[in-house]
């Protein structure tokens, strides 16, 4: 009978297509939008992955990694003096304009690394050598810079030059860096040269990057650093969570994406619920005939739930599949951001299960209430 229940479902092609379309659209909308949202949240913390260090020290007013409140250079030495710190190095990080050969400007994220240790260096170099940053006016650019410069007609290569604040910047290497939330390319140079490129300010130190001694817990070192007045310290993981929390709390991004996800769920419930109810309503006479012929409510419930969950599974699979195709295409392009964690798939699956349960239940109530005697009317 269950096989025949499925045949009943597939046989009503118009409603089956509508049900499948509704559920597919619902799953697609929820996973795709959640995927873009998660990708965007990843972008907000890309600096933490591009500059891999265990502990970040910043001004006490800093709330997330993309916010810079400059500190005095002396803070580096104060951090170095904390018990359990193996090393502490300065980092300059700021958005600044680069002037290209054709006279146009491109905002860049200037990252000044400690010239002695190169701590915070790019994770992956695709051309050149990071050590060459010690050469005069040397910078390393990321693949996003190459792409952005190319859009302006400039094919940037190792050896080429551009200007930052009227000072020459010579490309000595190309690296791979994760795209940032603002989408600006990363330009790496030494800390001292970054200060030369940047507008002079009384305080210019953006962050202090710290590594605890072997055997010393990061959390203990962070606690000790936090005791220094005016500065704050976070482990890499804490800073990551804090940054994402900040974007969720203080920007309209979650509401914007959440609304679309909610609409997706509501559209799914409305379309699937209504269509499935109509499907059952139109078949209620046949189901009542089965009842008259000896089908119990349990069997009819199995049939109705099987129909609902079959179309639900197919809709979920198609929706997630289309999202995967979308993600695959756009990850190659680089924009929009996309990241699909298993939690999104589980959440969407749970919503689809809810829609199926809801649709099947309202349909089933109709079947259970139907008296088998209606077949004689």
């Amino acid at each position, binding site marked *: *009978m269950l096989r*025949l229940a499925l*045949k009943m479902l597939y046989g009503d092609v118009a409603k089956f297509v509508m049900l499948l379309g509704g559920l597919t659209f619902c799953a697609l909308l929820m996973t795709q939008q959640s995927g873009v949202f998660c990708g965007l949240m990843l972008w907000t913390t890309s600096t933490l992955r591009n500059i891999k260090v265990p502990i970040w020290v910043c001004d006490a007013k800093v709330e997330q990694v993309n916010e810079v409140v400059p500190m005095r250079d002396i803070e580096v030495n104060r951090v170095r003096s904390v018990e359990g710190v193996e090393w502490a190095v300065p980092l300059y990080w700021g958005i600044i304009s680069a002037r290209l050969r054709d006279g146009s400007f491109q905002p860049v994220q200037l990252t000044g690394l400690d010239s002695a240790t190169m701590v915070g260096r790019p994770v992956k170099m695709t051309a050149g050598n990071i050590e060459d940053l010690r050469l005069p006016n040397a910078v390393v650019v990321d693949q996003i810079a190459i792409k952005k410069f190319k859009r302006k007609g400039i094919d940037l290569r190792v050896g080429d030059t551009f200007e930052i604040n009227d000072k020459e910047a010579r490309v000595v290497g190309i690296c791979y860096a994760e795209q940032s939330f603002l989408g600006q390319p990363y330009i790496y140079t030494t800390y001292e040269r970054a200060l030369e490129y940047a507008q002079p300010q009384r305080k210019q130190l953006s962050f202090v990057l710290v590594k605890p001694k072997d055997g010393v817990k990061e959390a203990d070192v962070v606690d000790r650093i936090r005791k220094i007045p005016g500065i704050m310290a976070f482990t890499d993981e804490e800073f990551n969570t804090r940054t994402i929390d900040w974007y969720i709390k203080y920007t309209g991004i979650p509401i914007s994406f959440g609304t679309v996800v909610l609409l997706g769920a509501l559209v799914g419930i409305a379309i699937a619920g209504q269509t499935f109810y109509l499907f059952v309503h139109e078949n209620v006479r046949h189901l009542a005939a*089965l009842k008259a*012929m*000896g*089908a119990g409510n349990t069997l009819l419930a199995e049939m109705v739930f099987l129909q609902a969950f079959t179309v639900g599974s197919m809709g979920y699979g198609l929706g997630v599949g289309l999202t995967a195709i979308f993600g695959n295409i756009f990850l190659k392009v680089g924009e929009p951001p996309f990241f699909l964690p298993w939690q999104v798939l589980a959440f969407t699956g749970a919503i689809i299960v809810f829609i199926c349960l809801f649709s099947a239940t309202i349909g089933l109530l109709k079947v259970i209430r139907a008296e088998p005697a209606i077949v*004689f009317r």
Partner: protein
Amino acid sequence: MSVAPSEFSNGNREIAVATRGVVKTFGRGDNAVRALKGVDFEARCGEMIMIVGPSGCGKTTFLSVICGTMKADAGSVNVFGTDLVHLGGGKLTDFRGRNVGFIFQQFNLIPTWNILENASIPLLLQGQSRRKAQDAAARLLTEVGLGRRLAAYPRELSGGQQQRVAIARALVHEPRLLICDEPTASLDAETGHKVLDLLKASACRDDRCVIVVTHDSRIFSFADRIAEMEDGLVKGVYGAGEYKAHYV
């Protein structure tokens, strides 16, 4: 001419259906409609008995009560020795599934299943394997002349052919009681005649009891007896010839 049910029982055959004082009311208070007002009725195995009467006299309600798809409010409904009034929901469904075959006015074939699947439903509901159910259904469909169209869907068949599928479906599990609700109402005269021929030939064998509710006077001659209903009561039970001679 009103006759007590027992006076028209056909010999020593087993009683298939016996009802006493069956009452059924729809609605409540001022809106209550008493559809059955204490029906006494008896049908025996091996006979085809037709229930006739004007629209609204309670024929269909009575048919629903004796086949167990509707509960009577009062009275007794005994089918093959089982009191349906006191049978619980699940047991009643099971009883119907094993003992009753149905032929409906609108055929009630499931349009998305082919006729072999439609005809095998009662056996599938009894838990028989698909193969066994379809073998039996194919035999019955061949018997009713549709052996070459087993894969056809109801929409591809004429009304008469669809009713033949319904007959095969009604008989496939060899029920002892066959309930037919206006089996010729959707058919032209010739097709209706053929369907009744078929019904009489295949249904009435094996000592089966066939109860037919109909308005169609053209098929009265197929009946062994005719029960006339009026205003929620069985007014009388007659031999088919006698009823035709006096009332048609």
